[in-house]
Structures are given as structure tokens and as C-alpha cells.
């Protein structure tokens, strides 16, 4: 009876509410009053701005930065003496190091032939022969791309982080679903963790755990574990009450209920949780190259350093292949986990598993050097294409960049930077209350005040301006493509794999094409952010539009609507929930990407963070900037998420 648990709707590890809930969210009474209030507020804000605007001069030296410098000095001085480190942090680091070493020893111990066989066998046994074949070809291709060692290193870190996440996340997820207060406490924590741009917590990681694999694995775990917890909790809470009731009536203990009813019935969802954890971990592991984690990320960092798109392309391809193989193995395993098997089938599976094990052990003794495989690389052709574009599209790209920078970005930036901080906080509170209710507004306003307190006002506002422009572009592009996909099935089918691949890429791969086209500028970060955030927006929009009930569409058509009227008056308004969700998702992703843009001249907070973990003098400022980014994330998330929730249907 558990054969088909519908896969929970997931985006970037967030568990989305079903779109139908959102689709019907009507605007409630008082729309008129709200409009007047908004108008009054806008006028008031504009007036206050004109009266009180500042010259936007640089901030005084932040006490926050000095404070963090002090923290850093203390940590440095006490790393080998304070009990907090001797008996706490350092052991965590040692334990994680041990885990990484074990996984590494296992994978390297298998050797090239052994590992390829092992992965194919796992694919075959867990997910069927197609997946097994895919795994075989995929892993062989790492050798062909000349990226075998790097790919295995990435796999080692990913698996270590996933193991940790599952060890921590599954029990927490079960608790969150079963114990009310645990769930309630975890929710805001997970929210914040998922909003936190990856970049912001690299520096604190190095402070506590130094550079290297342990810090990388822990950072990755922090990034991935919210998804593990959330989806596990979802799976457990989705177990039908009737089954639990029946088992209780038979006299099961709570523990028996968990192990014999809840966990088995939720197993499809649990496998999906692992799947999501893997995908998230993979994209984060690549980013941790910035704190000296080995693997494919190093190739991408290098390529970025040398503005060599082609070199990054190979590594990007390897990442996508790794992601696709891991994804297919786990999703198909999830599907199979739901299937029923006869006794005979089960025996076959065991036999297959045994045979596979023998094969793996046997092949692990075969020494093959992946370097001897035929080698292939896309670097040359890709660089030629990039060179051609640079040469021939220069005027277009330059015009686009300058147009958007001067026409939109600069005025917005000036506006925000010259707004006194208290006015900004007040405006956030007022508009927040209007669109999202006072609770969300309060949190957002506190976050805004916190940003002001960090002494990085100017940089924060610059980053905010870039984020706002990027999210606007993302929504325009995403909605257009999403609507298009919703109306043209064939196009949607063609685009879907592209979106899939795009979503498995770690964010900063997108910097490269953007840098190649637009050089070092804020616009580069905007372009990368748009590329990064558009795929999920397209999906959400497409789903939102497709989920508009056929009966409503039919009624509108039968009233004589033109296709355009149908779109603007029926489908888009009804997909509003999906659109807002898309805005919310998009904004968090855009922020993450704009910050990474600090690597390529987007400046502001992103630069502070990058400089912070590469320069001792700037460490404190970098940490403060990281915190400012998190606060910005909370602010933007609350404003948009609140918007979405407050008008949601009463459940």
C-alpha cells in the first residue's frame, strides 16, 4: 500500500507546499484600503527620503569588524589550549577527518576498475540495468575527461557529508515530525540555514575547523542537512493515520510503531531525502574548494582564476555527470523501494548483489590507470567559441552592461545608499506589515537594523541593489519561459533536461561564462545570478500555470477569452501562489549568487567576504559581511515568504 508515495515537491531542498494550495489564494477583503495605505506609505517614504537623505559616505570603521577580529585572535591564541577546542571542536574535526579518511581509503582502495564496477553494480542492483549502464558510462567518462582523481575526491567529500547529514538529519527529522516542540524549534533554525548563502559560512568554518577537508565536509553538511531533516519529517508525518491507528490498536509500543510502521511506510520519501541531500552536498562540496577542499571545485576555482572558460567546462561536465549518476541511482532506488517484490524476485536481487560484490572485489585487483583511456576535452573548442563571442559581440555585451548599470543599477544603488538607515528600517517595517503581516515585518525590520549595526551599510545596500535588479530580471525571464513551457508541451519536454542539468551545477560555475562575456563587473554577477536562479523559477511558474484547474480554463475559453486574455486574466493571477513562491526561491538563490560574484568584481559584501577569508587584516570585516548577508537573506525571505503565506488559503 505504500507503492506510490507521491514525491514531495522539492526545490533546492525546500519542501514546497502543493501549488494548488497557493493557486487559489485570493486577495481578501480590504484590497481597497490596502491600496490607499500603500499609496500613503509610498508618499511618506519618498518625502522622508527627500528630507533626510544622506550623502552616502563610507561607514565609520565598524565595531563589529573589530569585535570579530578579536574573536579570531582569541581563537588563534587558544586553539591548542582552550578546553573548548581541545575537547570539543578539535575532536569534531578529528572525527570528520577520520570519516573522510575511511571513505577515501575505501574508494581509492577499489582502484579505477573496482570503483567503476562498484558504482555500476550499485546502480544495477538498486535501480535497474539502465541506471547501472548509466553509472558505468558516467564513471568511465571521468577517466576520459582526465578528471578521475578530482572526481573521486569530490565523491569522497560528498559521500562523507551525506553520511554525516543522514546520521544527524534522519533522527532529527523523525523527532521533528513526532515531537511538537522539536519541530517548532527546528523550523526557524532550518529556515535560516536554508537562506544562508553558502559563501557566508566558509569563513567561520575555517576559523573553527581550519582549512581542508573537515571544514569542507562540515560546511557541506550544514548546507545539506536541512533538506534531510525536512524531507524525513515530511515522510514520517505523511504516514497515514489509519495505519498507525491500526498498529496501535494491535498493541505496538512507540518504538515498534516507529520501526515497523512509520519508517517502513516512509521509506520512499526517506530515499528521496537522501537523494536531495546528495544533490545539495555535491553542489556545496564544489564551492568548498575555496577553503582548500580537493576535487573538481579546484579545477573550477583555477579556471576562474585564469578566466579560462574551457577548463571549467570539462570540470562542469564531470560535475553534471556525477550529479546525474547519483541522482538516477537514488531516484530509481526510491521508485524500487516502493515496489513490491515476490519472494523469488527478492532472491534474485540477493543473488545479483552477491555476484556484483564478487565482481567488485575481483576487479579491484585489476590495476588500470585512467590516464591510459582515450582522452577528450572540450576546453579548446569552448574557448574558441568564447573568444569568438568576445570579439564579435563586444558592442552588444558592453552596451547591455553599461545600459543596465547606468540606467537601473546605479540609480537604485544611489537611492538605497543615501537612505538613512533608520528610514530603511522603518520602511521595511511599514511595507512588511502591509504585505506580510506584522510578524514577518518585525523580523525583517530587526534584520535591517542588524545590518545597520554591523557597520557595512554602504556595501549592504549596494549588494541589495544588485540583488533587486537580478531578481527582477530573473522573474521576467523565468516567468516568460515558464509560461511558454506551460503552453507548449514539446518545448517543455525539450527544456526539462537542460533545467535539470542547470540545477545540479554548483552556483559558481555560472560565473565563468558571465565573466567571459561581461568582464569583471556587478552586471557579471547579475547575469550569473539570473542563469542560476531562472531554472527553478521556470519550473515553479510552469507548474503554477499548469495547475490552474482545467475546469476554470474551460469556463474562461467558453466565455470567449482570447489566449492572451486567458493568460493575463486567468492563468497568471491563479498561478500567483506559484509566482510568489518563485520570487521567494529566486531571491534567496540570487542573493547567494550575487555574493559569490564578489569573486569577479561585483564588489560590496561579496568582496568583503572573499577578502575576509583571504586576508588576515580583513577577517573581521569579512565575518561581519557574512553576517550582513545572512541578515539580508532573512530580510528578503521574510518579506517575500510572508507575502506568500499571509494570503494563502486557510487550511
Amino acid at each position: 500500500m505504500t507503492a506510490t508515495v507521491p514525491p514531495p515537491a522539492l526545490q533546492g531542498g525546500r519542501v514546497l507546499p502543493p501549488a494548488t494550495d497557493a493557486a487559489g489564494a485570493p486577495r481578501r477583503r480590504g484590497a481597497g484600503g490596502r491600496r490607499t495605505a500603500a499609496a500613503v506609505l509610498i508618499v511618506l517614504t519618498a518625502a522622508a527620503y527627500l528630507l533626510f537623505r544622506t550623502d552616502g559616505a563610507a561607514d565609520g570603521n565598524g565595531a563589529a569588524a573589530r569585535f570579530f577580529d578579536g574573536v579570531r585572535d582569541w581563537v588563534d591564541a587558544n586553539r591548542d589550549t582552550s578546553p573548548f577546542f581541545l575537547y570539543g571542536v578539535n575532536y569534531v574535526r578529528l572525527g570528520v577527518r577520520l570519516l573522510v579518511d575511511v571513505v577515501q581509503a575505501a574508494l581509492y582502495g577499489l582502484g579505477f576498475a573496482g570503483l567503476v564496477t562498484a558504482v555500476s553494480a550499485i546502480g544495477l542492483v538498486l535501480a535497474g540495468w539502465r541506471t547501472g549502464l548509466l553509472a558505468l558510462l558516467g564513471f568511465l567518462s571521468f577517466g576520459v575527461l582526465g578528471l578521475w582523481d578530482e572526481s573521486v575526491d569530490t565523491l569522497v567529500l560528498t559521500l562523507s557529508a551525506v553520511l554525516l547529514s543522514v546520521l544527524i538529519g534522519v533522527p532529527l527529522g523523525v523527532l521533528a515530525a513526532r515531537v511538537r516542540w522539536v519541530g517548532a524549534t527546528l523550523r526557524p533554525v532550518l529556515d535560516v540555514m536554508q537562506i544562508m548563502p553558502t559563501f557566508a559560512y566558509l569563513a567561520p568554518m575555517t576559523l573553527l575547523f581550519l582549512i581542508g577537508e573537515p571544514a569542507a565536509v562540515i560546511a557541506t553538511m550544514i548546507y545539506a542537512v536541512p533538506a534531510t531533516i525536512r524531507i524525513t519529517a515530511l515522510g514520517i508525518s505523511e504516514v497515514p493515520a489509519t495505519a498507525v491507528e491500526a498498529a496501535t490498536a494491535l498493541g505496538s509500543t512507540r518504538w515498534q510503531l516507529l520501526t515497523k510502521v512509520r519508517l517502513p511506510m516512509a521509506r520512499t520519501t526517506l530515499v528521496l531525502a537522501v537523494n536531495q541531500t546528495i544533490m545539495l552536498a555535491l553542489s556545496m562540496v564544489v564551492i568548498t574548494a575555496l577553503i582548500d577542499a580537493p576535487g573538481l571545485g579546484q579545477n573550477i576555482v583555477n579556471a576562474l582564476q585564469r578566466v579560462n572558460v574551457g577548463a571549467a567546462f570539462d570540470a562542469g561536465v564531470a560535475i553534471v555527470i556525477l550529479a546525474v549518476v547519483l541522482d538516477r541511482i537514488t531516484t530509481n532506488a526510491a521508485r524500487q523501494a516502493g515496489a513490491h517484490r515476490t519472494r523469488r524476485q527478492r532472491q534474485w536481487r540477493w543473488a545479483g548483489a552477491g555476484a556484483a560484490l564478487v565482481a567488485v572485489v575481483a576487479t579491484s585487483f585489476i590495476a588500470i590507470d585512467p590516464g591510459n583511456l582515450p582522452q577528450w576535452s572540450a576546453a579548446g573548442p569552448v574557448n574558441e567559441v568564447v573568444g569568438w563571442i568576445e570579439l564579435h559581440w563586444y558592442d552588444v555585451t558592453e552596451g547591455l552592461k553599461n545600459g543596465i548599470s547606468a540606467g537601473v543599477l546605479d540609480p537604485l544603488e544611489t537611492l538605497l545608499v543615501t537612505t538613512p538607515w533608520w528610514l530603511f528600517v522603518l520602511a521595511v517595517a511599514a511595507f512588511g506589515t502591509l504585505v506580510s503581516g506584522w510578524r514577518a515585518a518585525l523580523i525583517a525590520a530587526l534584520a535591517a537594523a542588524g545590518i545597520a549595526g554591523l557597520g557595512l551599510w554602504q556595501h549592504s545596500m549596494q549588494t541589495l541593489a544588485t540583488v533587486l535588479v537580478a531578481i527582477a530580471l530573473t522573474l521576467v525571464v523565468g516567468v516568460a519561459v515558464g509560461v511558454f513551457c506551460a503552453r507548449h508541451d514539446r518545448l517543455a519536454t525539450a527544456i526539462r533536461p537542460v533545467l535539470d542539468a542547470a540545477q545540479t551545477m554548483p552556483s559558481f560555475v555560472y560565473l565563468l561564462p558571465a565573466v567571459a562575456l561581461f568582464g569583471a563587473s556587478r552586471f557579471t554577477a547579475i547575469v550569473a545570478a539570473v542563469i542560476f536562479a531562472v531554472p527553478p523559477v521556470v519550473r515553479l511558474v510552469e507548474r503554477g500555470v499548469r495547475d490552474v484547474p482545467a475546469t476554470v480554463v474551460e469556463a474562461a475559453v467558453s466565455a470567449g477569452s482570447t489566449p492572451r486574455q486567458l493568460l493575463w486574466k486567468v492563468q497568471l493571477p491563479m498561478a500567483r501562489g506559484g509566482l510568489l513562491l518563485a520570487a521567494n526561491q529566486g531571491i534567496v538563490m540570487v542573493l547567494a549568487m550575487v555574493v559569490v560574484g564578489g569573486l569577479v568584481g561585483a564588489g560590496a559584501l561579496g568582496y568583503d567576504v572573499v577578502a575576509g577569508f583571504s586576508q588576515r587584516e580583513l577577517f573581521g570585516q569579512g565575518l561581519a559581511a557574512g553576517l550582513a548577508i545572512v541578515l539580508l537573506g532573512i530580510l528578503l525571505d521574510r518579506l517575500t515568504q510572508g507575502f506568500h503565506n499571509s494570503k494563502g488559503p486557510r487550511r
Partner: protein
Amino acid sequence: MRTFRTTVAAALIVSLTACGGATSGAGEDEPSAGAKGTVNLAVNPWVGYEANAAVIAYLLEKKMGYTVDKKELKEEIAWQGFETGEVDVIVENWGHPDLKKTYIEDKKVAVEVGPTGNEGIIGWYVPEWMTQQYPDITDYKSLNKYANLFKTSESKGKGQFLAGDPSFVTNDEALVTNLKLNYTVVYSGSEAAIIKAAQQATAQKKPLLFYFYEPQWLFAKEKYVRVKLPAYTEGCDKDLKKVACDYPDYKLDKIASKKFADTGGAAYQFVKNFTWTNDDQNLVSDYLTNQGMSADQAAEKWVNEHEATWKPWIPA
């Protein structure tokens, strides 16, 4: 090649629990003592450094039988690596008195291993064609006059000063403020990005004022002229917020971890002996950047042609 530290780490956990607490270096690679060990070589993000690293790694591996593990790290992160044991040597260090104080004097996890022989210069540069068109542009006092030339989408209506990788130690923002220059510092993000901008500035006669340094292969191809800032005097860059003078000249040097110095044997001795000239480095950098050679190919070519230079580095 990989070294498996599993057993070491496991044993360490057990033993450390017994004797009270884990230190930050626990569980990391044992120093690569003795012959045929592994040398962990930090690689900082500029091509000159890579040239040093390429040749050193090549000689260590091909002529001395070591294994070299290259680690792409930013400068300061590489220094942190001395503490964790991830890094054995840095082979081109630009000053960093603060880091030296922390890691060499205070923590005693690193030691100086002497100069590389390269002279480092950091400064503000413009392409040569600009000095012909605007002869006084090489004096910082007239920069404000020309600020308009350097306007870009990123410079907020002022002139743009293009800086490099955020991890490079720079005084540019302070200089702009303290010299009252009407400029905005924009970070290109990497050495490659500056070089690209510089090449474009020369080829397309686009105005560009940028942070740059020698040794640098690009100077062998195209001419760039340094802008005169107020001269450097000892201690004028003490307070980073108040700097109003040019960058000092650097004697680039090598740094090694204490462990490596104590137990590195021939490899350590070799690193200590390594010195060459700016021209040598520029040559290898050119191979790397413009001849499309890999680090090993570039090093091999240079090593084949300069036996006299490197022979004395190899300890007897």
C-alpha cells in the same frame, strides 16, 4: 598519490583521549620526512608564483624522486596551512610582516627559507600610449584631471582604478581616499582579469589605471608605465587606514613549515637553495600563459635550457 591517514587518525583519537584533548594539528599528515616523501606545495593565484612552483615541483619529482602535492590556495590560507600541516612550503612570499609575526614568531609553526632572488614591485600602472597622449598622467597629482577618461559602468561616476584578486594585499582604497583622488577601486577578481584588461587597454587604446606588479611576463610583451605616488619611506604604510605612499619594493622569499624545515631533508635543502631572476620567472610564466603549456611542460622546457641555473640547487 594519496596517503592514507586512517590508522594514524584512529590511533590519534584513541591516544589523545587518553592524554587529554586534541590539538589543531592532530590527525594531519605527518611531515614528509626523509627522501621519497610527499611535499605539500602551496600554489598562490598568480602566474609568477606558478612558475616558481612548476620548476620546483618538476625538479623535486623528476630529479629528486619526491612526490609533490600542489594546493591551490590564496596567500593567507596557505599560511594557515602551516598550522594544520596541509602546507609544507610557500615559494613566493610578498612581505606579509603580520603573517610572519603570527606564524613564525608567535605560533612558531613556520620559518623563513630565504629569498627567491626575485625583486617584487607593486604599483599603479597605465598603458604606455597614455603617457604619450597625456604626458603628465604618470604623476598622481594630475590623476584627478583625467578621472573622466577612466569612467566605467562600475566606477560610480568617478574614474575606475582596477585592482586584482581580493586576496592580494593592497593599499589602493586607502591611497585613493588619502590622496583625495576622484576614483573608485574596482576588483577584477583575478590576475588573469587584470592582464586581460591591460591587454585590451593596449590593443584598443582604452584608458586604464590598474594595480600591477613585477615580475610579470606581460612586461616583456607590452609596455606599461608606473604612476608616481608619494615615495615609500620606512614605516609610511604602518597604519593601513592612513597610507598615503607608494608600495615598497619587495624581496620575495620562501617560507616553510617548521616541521618541514626540521625533517624535510634534501627537499627542504633544495627549496632553500632555490633562487633565480625575474627574467627566469617571466620566461616560465610566458610558457605557461601564452604557449599553452602545462606546468610540467613549461618546467621541463626551462629545465632543459637552464641546467647551469638549477644544478647548484640540488643538494649533494
